[in-house]
């Protein structure tokens, strides 16, 4: 622009050479970048292989939650209505996802690995009420699956992660 320094034109080179590089944008809805295995996304509740729920309704997750977004109401298992492996089970298990900060304290707190944070991040809804996840929603397989990067390489091999998520 100014007659003096040719250095001023160096910037033009920087911008021009980018034209021949591949854009770094990822075409999101079509291409989903694999998340790393530790990524904390949508919650999951887990069941044992025999179909019993792992959650025993101890409310540790609710106690650990900094955002107070978990509500657990426990009830005793009865012989004809056996839901969980422990004495009690969670009759109501709700997470208000619009409040959740995805810190993962709930999965740290859970002594039975009943709740983990999965990999799904597409959890937007049109209404706040739809973001209150009930136990059924948390137990179900998520509809949208997100690919996960190399688990051996990017995760610490502790049994907790190998079994689930």
């Amino acid at each position, binding site marked *: 622009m100014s007659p003096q320094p040719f250095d001023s034109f160096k910037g033009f080179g920087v911008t021009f050479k980018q034209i021949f590089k591949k854009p770094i944008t990822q075409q999101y809805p079509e291409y989903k970048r694999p998340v790393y295995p530790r990524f904390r996304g949508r919650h999951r509740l887990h069941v044992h292989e025999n179909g019993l729920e792992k959650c025993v309704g101890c409310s540790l997750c609710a106690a650990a939650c900094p*955002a*107070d*977004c978990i*509500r657990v*109401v426990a009830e005793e298992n009865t012989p004809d209505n056996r839901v969980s492996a422990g004495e009690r089970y969670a009759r*109501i298990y*709700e997470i*208000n996802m*619009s*409040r959740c900060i995805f810190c993962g304290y709930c999965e740290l707190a859970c002594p039975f690995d009943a709740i983990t944070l999965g990999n799904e991040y597409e959890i937007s809804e049109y209404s*706040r*009420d739809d973001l*209150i996840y*009930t136990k059924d929603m948390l137990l179900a397989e998520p509809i949208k699956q997100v690919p996960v990067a190399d688990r051996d390489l990017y995760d610490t091999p502790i049994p907790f992660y190998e079994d689930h998520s």
Partner: protein
Amino acid sequence: MAAADYLGWGSRGVAGYIGNAAGRDLNRPGSQGLERTPEPKPKRFAMSYHLLAIPGARRVRVQAWLDEDEPVPSVVPVWPTADWHEREAWDLMGIRFEGHPNLSRILMDDDWEGHPLRKDYPIGGEPVRFSGEE
């Protein structure tokens, strides 16, 4: 007792800055762990001034003890940086500074009532929404 006079720094012109001017509510039994403060705690608030002399890296903490509505002299004339810190302490803790040129609320609205960081100010907030199922 302004912290500056106490140290005699103001008159000697030593450059320093206030890291922190934080009020503290002492309604409850006080603290005396790692760094002892006078015992017994006579008053409700403790004003802490964290001073740092940049050449020499010396840090000093000065505490002034205040009752409710007891003013403390402003240190703005000595350390201009105290301006907003003192306004914040006034806004959130309700500690009055005498001689501050512009002691008004800084973080809360101008017409806010109460001083939110005091322990007798309820934390409030709206209840977390759940499905309401019993």
